[in-house]
């Protein structure tokens, strides 16, 4: 079987049966990375010794007659925001250049326990702040469908690694759309689970109340399997939810009679007409599959971006305070006192977008402004959540575009932060509400750029979200890898 056309489910079955060794799979994808990645730059760190040692461990386990996990030998790309013990974890930032965590994140441990094999650490916008991966301190990632364009962000490296088949599963984090937006722009599947579904222990924090780890894959089934592996309550994360983990693969059935809500606010000004056409076509497909399409309203949608940039910057300003040059990471040397050490380290260590958000967040938490911004932001956040609660009284799932446009050109929005912020206009609300969302490919623009369709579900109802995504995927079957790479 051609590994480029294989799914993660195929690979794990073949590795478990001995049809192929984990080492052979790892070698194949490492070679692929070596050939392709110079054009894409999806990875910040590839360590063949590390990857092969993980693969050998899987093979040894099989040789010892032990049963293998659900991701046996599956090549997985990790966003460089997940702590890997002894392996560089930079968050796309100069301030963590050369930083090797002394511990591993829960998500990484769970993947290892499922016998996954890591092929590298994926590029990202610095500290997950951005929508194009251009904010990486180590250079941007290109979109495999058109290398002059951005792959989306902040998990751009993860999404691109799947589209270019340098991995079969990738892990990202989504604070305001950082998994779903790049999945849409790279034409792959990406899911943000319910807040608390996946432990955040070892995920370098950007905005603690919004951050959530989730999987990327080329298809819904691989996504579902990976989600089952990484989900679950973790004693080390007090915000992780104590709810049973579903077998998400088993839930992939048909959608007859399912009520799908379409929010009218998601088809407003700013939505590219080609994107709108693809999404409307997708809704017709779902109707054809027996689902009922219902218009719903999410009246506070227009406040989501403003609310998001209050909450996420406030939390980020505090979360990123620890990068000060004192205990670990980059330090500007030769400073005369501690205050200079702090300010010169942070001045040189952080990029402009991170600084912008730290300053915004510091401002909104300042005495005298706290109530006007932060407290009010939390109130609006509750209203946005209420919008979804109301909508879900009459529908099972909500569908709409993942992004307002297809992938834009590199450099196009770098000088215009506000237009960059609006890339996440359809994805931000789910983070504020804490509900699950997925982006699946729904065709292409006339220029051949992928378009994403988003499904959003009730809290902890990943099952229904995955079910509708899988049914749609099966009915359409769009290509998820560009032909001419």
């Amino acid at each position, binding site marked *: 079987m051609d590994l480029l056309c294989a799914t993660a489910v195929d690979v794990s079955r073949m590795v478990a049966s001995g049809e192929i060794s984990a080492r052979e799979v790892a070698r194949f994808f490492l070679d692929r990375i070596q050939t392709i990645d110079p054009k894409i730059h999806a990875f910040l760190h590839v360590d063949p010794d590390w990857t092969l040692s993980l693969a050998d461990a899987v093979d040894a386990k099989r040789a010892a007659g032990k049963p293998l996990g659900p991701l046996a030998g599956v090549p997985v790309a990790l966003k460089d925001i997940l702590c890997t013990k002894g392996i560089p974890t930079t968050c796309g930032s100069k301030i963590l250049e050369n930083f090797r965590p002394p511990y591993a994140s829960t998500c990484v441990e769970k993947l290892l326990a499922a016998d996954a094999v890591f092929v590298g650490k994926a590029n990202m916008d610095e500290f997950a702040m951005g929508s194009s991966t251009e904010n990486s301190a180590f250079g941007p990632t290109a979109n495999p469908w058109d290398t002059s364009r951005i792959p989306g962000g902040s998990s751009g490296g993860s999404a691109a690694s799947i589209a270019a088949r340098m991995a079969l599963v990738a892990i990202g984090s989504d604070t305001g759309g950082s998994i779903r937006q790049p999945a849409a722009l790279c034409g792959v599947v990406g899911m943000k689970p319910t807040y608390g579904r996946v432990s955040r222990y070892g995920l370098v924090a950007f905005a603690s109340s919004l951050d959530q780890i989730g999987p990327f894959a080329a298809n819904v089934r691989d996504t579902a399997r990976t989600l089952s592996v990484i989900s679950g309550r973790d004693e080390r994360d007090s915000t992780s939810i104590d709810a049973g983990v579903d077998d998400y693969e088993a839930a992939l059935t048909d959608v007859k009679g399912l009520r799908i809500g379409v929010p009218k606010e998601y088809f407003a000004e700013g939505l590219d007409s080609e994107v709108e056409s693809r999404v409307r076509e997708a809704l017709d497909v779902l109707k054809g599959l027996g689902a009922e399409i219902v218009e719903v309203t999410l009246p506070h949608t227009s406040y989501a971006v403003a609310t998001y940039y209050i909450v996420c910057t406030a939390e980020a300003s505090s979360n990123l305070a620890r990068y*000060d040059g004192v205990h670990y990471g980059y330090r500007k040397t030769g400073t005369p006192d501690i205050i200079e050490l702090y300010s010169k380290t942070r001045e040189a260590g952080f990029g402009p977008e991170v600084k912008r958000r730290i300053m915004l967040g510091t401002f909104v938490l300042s005495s005298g402004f*706290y109530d006007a911004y932060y407290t009010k932001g939390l109130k609006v956040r509750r209203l946005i959540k209420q919008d979804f609660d109301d909508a879900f009284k009459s529908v099972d799932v909500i569908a709409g575009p993942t992004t307002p446009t297809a992938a834009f050109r590199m450099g196009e929005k770098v000088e215009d932060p506000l237009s960059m912020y609006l890339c996440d206009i359809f994805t931000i609300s789910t983070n504020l509400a804490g509900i699950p969302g997925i982006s699946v490919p729904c065709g292409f623009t006339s220029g051949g750029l992928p378009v994403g369709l988003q499904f959003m579900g009730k809290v902890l109802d990943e099952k229904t979200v995955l079910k509708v995504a899988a049914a749609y995927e099966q009915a359409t079957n769009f290509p998820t890898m560009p032909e001419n790479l």
Partner: protein
Amino acid sequence: MPVTDYDIVIGLEAHAHLLTRTKMFCSCRTTFGAEANSQTCPVCIGMPGVLPVINRKALMLALRSAVAFKCEIPATMRFDRKNYYYPDLPKNYQISQNYTPLGVKGFVEIETSKGRKKIGLDNIHLEEDAGKLLHPEGSGAVYSQVDLNRAGTPLLEIVTRPDMSDLDEVEAYMETLRRTLEALEISDCKMQEGSLRFEASVSLKPLGAAELGNRVEVKNLNSVRAVLNALAYEIDRQAAALDARERIDRETRLWNEELSRTERMRSKEEAQDYRYFPEPDLGPIVVLDEWLQEISASLQELPNERKWRFEDEYALPSYDAGVLTQKRAIADYFEAAVAAGRAEVSDPARLAKVVSNWVMGQVLKELNDRKVEITDFPVTPERLAGLVTLIESGKISNTIAQQLLPIMIETGEDAGRIAEQRGMLQVSDTAEIEKLMDEVLAANPKPVADYRSGKKAVFGFLVGQAMRQTKGKANPQVVAEILTKKLEN
């Protein structure tokens, strides 16, 4: 104007390490004095990606203090982040409680020579301690070192209202707080190890004036003495400044122990904006009724309350009640001994006082000499009650009793048995004593003659001779009676 022309208003903030084995948000040990940075992990050194997990024991101990000091406890509480940069604070924010402290509006009742007084508490909250900066010895060092063993240690902060008006009250408050936290096993309160620390704030206003002067906060107070000295200095400084019609700035000052003075650290204008906001890594804590019921049920009497009960119930002098309630086990011992003696001794007040004298005197002395805890003391409260009963019923003298106690400790026997076996019971048999007295009188013709010629002072000498003759076993009252009768004849 002298200081006495001003109203003094003092508030205290106490920081107490909770008696937990592990830290507030990770499982590192909190043992004092370990090698630098040996008690750390990714969580308490603030590595990227780590998350805090609440130490349940710390939460329960903190709630225990809130219940003990009669605070209002919110049904739901959260932690908040206090943001500031300092190298001993690895995350550059401290997880604390600002918006929903775990207790508000309680009080600590103190006693001074002016009587009892309730010192109001503004709030009690839970937070994590910071690490320590070490400045290498010797000149020319251009760096500091950080020890993060203490970082993340559970810290209880108890903030009073500005209710104290003199140093006696301040001292009594500190002492009461220390005793209470120790007795309830909330903190070991070792000031020399930094497990109890204070910060003070003080302001003055001319007697009767409506408006209070600006408040000055004083930090770096490492002992009870330092708190009192710093406040005394600061009160004088502020009074002198007000006399000279100078303005008192609202500021924070540091106590300089060496120079015995306070020095400006920062003014209000330079005060930090801590940008408190709810800690998003920890969800809200719903305080369950059953927790509070459990705490209330297990909470024993506070030391001060017990002292005052001893004064009322046992009619003990304030001094005795204070000494006996210094330690819970001593107070328990005392109460058990009194209870055991009740059946034999009819005057309860007298019984209590005699037992008190014994506990405060011989018992504490023996414990001290032998370096044992009262819970391991071989003379049980019941045995001590037995000894006291023998004295009160006239069966042994106090002198004999003093000799009996060490034997009771050595042998573990009860007092009555030892006294009987060793012939130490007091002789009250008149015939026997009369016979002895005749011998004493015959042996001392000169004092007898002196007495009879009016030199009554020799009586004491003759009683002494008689007691010596009986090796202290004769009932002195009976001896005196018989001797008088014989001499007068």
